[in-house]
């Protein structure tokens, strides 16, 4: 019970800044009243309750399963299966991501306006679908590469530097219209459920392999997952 009250307090504290910011701009800067104050308070209560439940589920569900699977894979010692799992996790969590679907549809519109593809519904749909698949494959590839890095113990910054160079080279050749979308696509791929799972997987792997430090080697998977989509999306823009 005590833990629950503490969790509730923490969620309220986490939400407080947004409420202050919105209230400040609404009342003092725009000088307008709040529409439907009661409904808003009800909504805030739901946000706090939701955050509390989410964090509880994180500790009892998502973190333990990510770690258990990492330990089991490390003990089993089968690299191909582990890499396949990493790819499947990255691909599977990204392909159905609502934020990505929204971005892909917008990108199709930009491409049609820019004359890169025909302005028909079917052309735009196939463009958006192709883009989504590209991003999902790139995230799968990123998690796979990240897991391989943890096993090999390579320093994360060399791979990130390589990724940055990749982004820069692609930027020089990619059509102007796709650059903004490509840069943003890196940010939208990592959802609220993927992040805890992937983090637990990385940290679990790094703690169960001898000679790896979970702090130095365990993190970094998310970073790859937000870098590779930029490169792959610009490549998609060049090829089409």
């Amino acid at each position, binding site marked *: 019970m005590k833990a629950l009250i503490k969790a509730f307090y923490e969620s309220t504290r986490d939400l407080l800044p947004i409420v202050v*910011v919105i209230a400040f701009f609404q009342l003092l800067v725009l000088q307008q009243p709040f529409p439907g104050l009661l409904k808003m308070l009800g*909504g805030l209560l739901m946000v706090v309750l939701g955050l509390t439940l989410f964090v509880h589920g994180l500790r009892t569900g998502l973190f333990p399963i990510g770690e258990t699977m990492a330990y089991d894979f490390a003990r089993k010692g089968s690299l191909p299966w582990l890499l396949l799992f990493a790819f499947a996790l990255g691909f*599977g969590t990204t392909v159905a991501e609502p934020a990505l679907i929204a971005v892909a549809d917008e990108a199709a519109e930009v491409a049609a306006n820019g004359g890169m593809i025909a302005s028909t519904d079917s052309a735009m749909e196939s463009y958006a679908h192709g883009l989504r698949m590209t991003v999902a494959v790139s995230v799968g590839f990123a998690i796979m590469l990240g897991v391989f890095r943890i096993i090999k113990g390579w320093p994360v910054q060399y791979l990130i530097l390589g990724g940055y160079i990749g982004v820069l080279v692609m930027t020089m050749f990619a059509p102007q219209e796709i650059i903004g979308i490509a840069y943003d696509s890196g940010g939208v791929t990592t959802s609220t459920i993927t992040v805890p799972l992937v983090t637990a997987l990385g940290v679990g792997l790094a703690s169960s392999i001898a000679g790896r430090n979970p702090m130095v080697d365990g993190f970094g998977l998310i970073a790859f997952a937000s870098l590779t989509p930029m490169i792959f999306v610009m490549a998609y823009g060049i090829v089409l």
Partner: protein
Amino acid sequence: MTDWLLEFAGIFFDTVTDVLPIATILFGFQFLVIRRQIPHLYRILSGFFYVILGLAFFLMGLEQALFPVGKLMAQQLTDPHFLGIDVELYKETIATQWASYYWVYLFAFAIGFSTTIAEPSLIAVAIKANDVSGGNINPWGLRIAVAIGVALGISLGAFRIITGTPLHYYIISGYIVVMLQTMFAPRSIIALAYDSGGVTTSTVTVPLVAALGLGLSATVPGRNPMLDGFGLIAFASLFPIMSVMGYAQLGRWYAHRQQQKTEYNTEE
């Protein structure tokens, strides 16, 4: 009440469909490849249920309480009439008027900071970092460092849309700064700092920031929402990397100074 229930059921169902492919992959590999009983299976399943239920409440509450007013606010604040800018007068030279958009920068900063503090995936990473570092990394300090990074990033992104400078100049300079910082940052923070770039932009931040980008690019003369509306998310994922490494460097510098002070005192 029935409306509410229907809406909640819809959001709950959407969340379940989001989680389903992930759960299939996890349990599929567990049963077919690892072939070992999951310890505390019941506890883990109930944890999944809490996550889904929590996210459903969270999203529904945001939709009801914050997103409509936040999005409207982004539109109103970017309106040239509100800002007192005569767009007819500055059609071609709007970039020279960048300072008149001060409310936009302040809003971008405040909304970037506050939404990041409430971002569930960042909470998850902060908890994990605290566990792994044996308490060395303060979750609250990490989250504030990330939030400051996002706040600066989004304000700068707003400045870029207003002045109309190309996105990749900023991103390339950002990459160079990140690489320079990497050379000097404590080794244990590097991977975490890179990760914090990716986690900042999800459920809470993206809708409000996207509304700001669209509002700005639609009202600043000469900007095209289709082209210039993008890019704020990219800023929001780049700047936390710098602020987290900066935070770690500051922490190390402070610890170093404290240590020197004690040494000095004992010498006396």
